[in-house]
């Protein structure tokens, strides 16, 4: 029997694995008929999940945690059975800001987050004096990986996110327009919207998520609780189909076809050449020089789809750090429990995938790629470091947050 699943997504490159699951037949092979619905806001995706229009959806990785803890306008109870890859977003600055940065740093090279942070801090006083206002940064949602990693990077670079700059919310496809109109000077958004802005001559790439925190979480696949309870088998089939689609997306020989598919107006609606860099890692730096970014977006490699509870806990730690919620060990536990590695494991069991022994890891601990004690002994993870070389131990959330407090 074919099972129908209505699934919401936003026009972003990390929706590619869901789109590929549908278009390349992976869902059909599992006996699923996916109905993909492109949405215009994360609020719509949340509302439609809550009222039961969608059984599954792409979501910002912190959103299910915010929904569970009652931080969003409406309580949302969903499960996260898998991640939709690692990395995939970047920080773009306006042409004016790029010029200011290059004036002060003529020897600028590449997209390194440390160079970017030091550079930005150096030009902030000049910028503020010239414009008579603070620098405005655009992010897509208060409960997004973009918001937290941008704040992390700013703070670690000596820039106070709530004091030294303004942070504004702008929907992803409108980011280039917001830069064109001067509403934002810098933004952190998922691809292809950085490449679109660069392509239109509106801005230049400053750094990437993969440089701020290598192999870091970005979007997740969510399933609604009523759907999961009524059809646990279908939920597992969905995870399997998306997993196999992710492996397909990771293969180099498929990138041209994938970019063409994603460029369709009903999916992302951007040019294939604005989508391809996400996969090839070939971007231009602040001065327009070509540069290769390692691990810019990993759809499948290094277990990129595993829903690590330590990722959930890192997002929770940042919600506490930036005052969105007070620390409470019970909240931390609930945040971690939203990420359901048990479903992932059960779903992928038939595929004989090599899986890690635990659902948490110390984030930022692997400076180089290393084998971990997996079931089959072949799984390698990392490198996964934060750019400031600090580590996050998921068993020490409170201590991590208190140590960060004085940077806030």
């Amino acid at each position, binding site marked *: 029997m074919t099972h129908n699943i209505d699934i919401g997504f936003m026009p972003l490159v990390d929706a590619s694995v869901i789109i590929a699951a549908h278009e390349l037949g992976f869902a059909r092979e599992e006996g699923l008929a996916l109905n993909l619905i492109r949405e215009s*806001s*994360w609020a719509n995706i949340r509302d*439609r999940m809550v*009222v039961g229009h969608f059984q599954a959806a792409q979501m910002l990785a912190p959103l299910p945690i915010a929904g569970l803890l009652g931080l969003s306008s409406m309580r949302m109870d969903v499960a996260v059975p898998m991640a939709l890859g690692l990395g995939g977003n970047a920080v773009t600055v306006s042409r004016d800001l790029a010029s200011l940065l290059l004036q002060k740093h003529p020897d600028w090279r590449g997209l390194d987050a440390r160079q970017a942070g030091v550079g930005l801090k150096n030009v902030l006083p000049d910028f503020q004096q010239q414009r008579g206002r603070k620098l405005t940064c655009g992010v897509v949602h208060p409960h997004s990986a973009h918001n937290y990693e941008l704040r992390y990077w700013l703070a670690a670079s000596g820039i106070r996110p709530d004091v030294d700059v303004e942070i504004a*919310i702008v929907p992803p496809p409108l980011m280039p327009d917001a830069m064109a109109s001067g509403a934002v000077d810098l933004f952190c958004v998922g691809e292809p919207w950085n490449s679109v802005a660069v392509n239109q001559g509106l801005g230049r790439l400053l750094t990437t998520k993969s440089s701020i925190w290598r192999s870091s979480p970005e979007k997740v696949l969510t399933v609604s609780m009523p759907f999961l309870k009524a059809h646990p088998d279908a939920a597992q089939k969905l995870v399997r189909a998306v997993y196999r689609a992710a492996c397909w997306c990771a293969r180099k020989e498929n990138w041209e076809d994938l970019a063409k598919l994603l460029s369709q107006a009903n999916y992302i609606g951007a040019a294939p050449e604005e989508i391809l860099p996400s996969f090839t890692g070939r971007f231009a730096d602040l001065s327009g020089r070509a540069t290769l970014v390692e691990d810019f977006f990993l759809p499948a490699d290094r277990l990129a789809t595993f829903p690590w509870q330590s990722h959930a806990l890192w997002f929770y730690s940042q919600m506490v750090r930036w005052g969105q919620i007070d620390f409470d060990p019970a909240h931390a536990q609930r945040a971690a429990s939203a990420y359901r590695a048990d479903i992932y494991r059960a779903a992928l069991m038939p595929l004989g995938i090599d899986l890690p022994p635990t659902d948490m890891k110390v984030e930022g601990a692997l400076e180089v790629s290393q084998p971990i004690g997996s079931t089959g002994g072949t799984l390698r993870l990392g490198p996964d470091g934060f750019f400031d070389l600090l580590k996050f131990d998921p068993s020490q959330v409170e201590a991590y947050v208190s140590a960060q407090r004085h940077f806030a």
Partner: protein
Amino acid sequence: MEKLSVLIVDDNAIRASIIEAGLVEHDGTIVTIATGLHGLVEKIESVQPDVIVVDIEHPSRDLLESYFSISRAVRKPIAMFVDKSDPAWIEQAIDAGVSSYVVDGLRKNRVKPVIDAAIRRFKAFHKMAMELEATRSELQGRKQIDRAKGLLMRSKGLSEEEAYALLRRTAMNQNRKISDVAERLVSAAELLAPGADKGDGE
């Protein structure tokens, strides 16, 4: 009773004014319309609305919710869906394409009639737009049929009735609409002989 202030956020100016017309019929309602993202927040701060009705496809929803959660400049509006006592009503609103935010603490019996009116107007607009689209495509279809008839009359030396009969027969055999068959014929003719159908139709 103090008047209820309603802000409509919708980039479709015609729809917004239709909703406005529906709302002002309610005694004691002041309606303001906002279009676009630019200056939206400032408008909310100056209007201080009790109810905000947003087109569900409007890209401002995440921005608005984030603003509501941190702003101290406005009384805190909350998503209408927070009151989950009536799930059918919520679904009806979403189906109609309406999302709404209501200042915390307002009594439901004051607010619900207003939002219901907005939902009705959204639906009416949607129906109107669909009918308009149907009329438009019917007109377009007729135009294509006329062009296809002209082509057949010229190329096959048929009379108008014969040309139409041929189109209808082909459509029946292929289990398609006559206008579809006509459209394919016209585009094929355009492809094969540019300028061949000049002077027909339009």
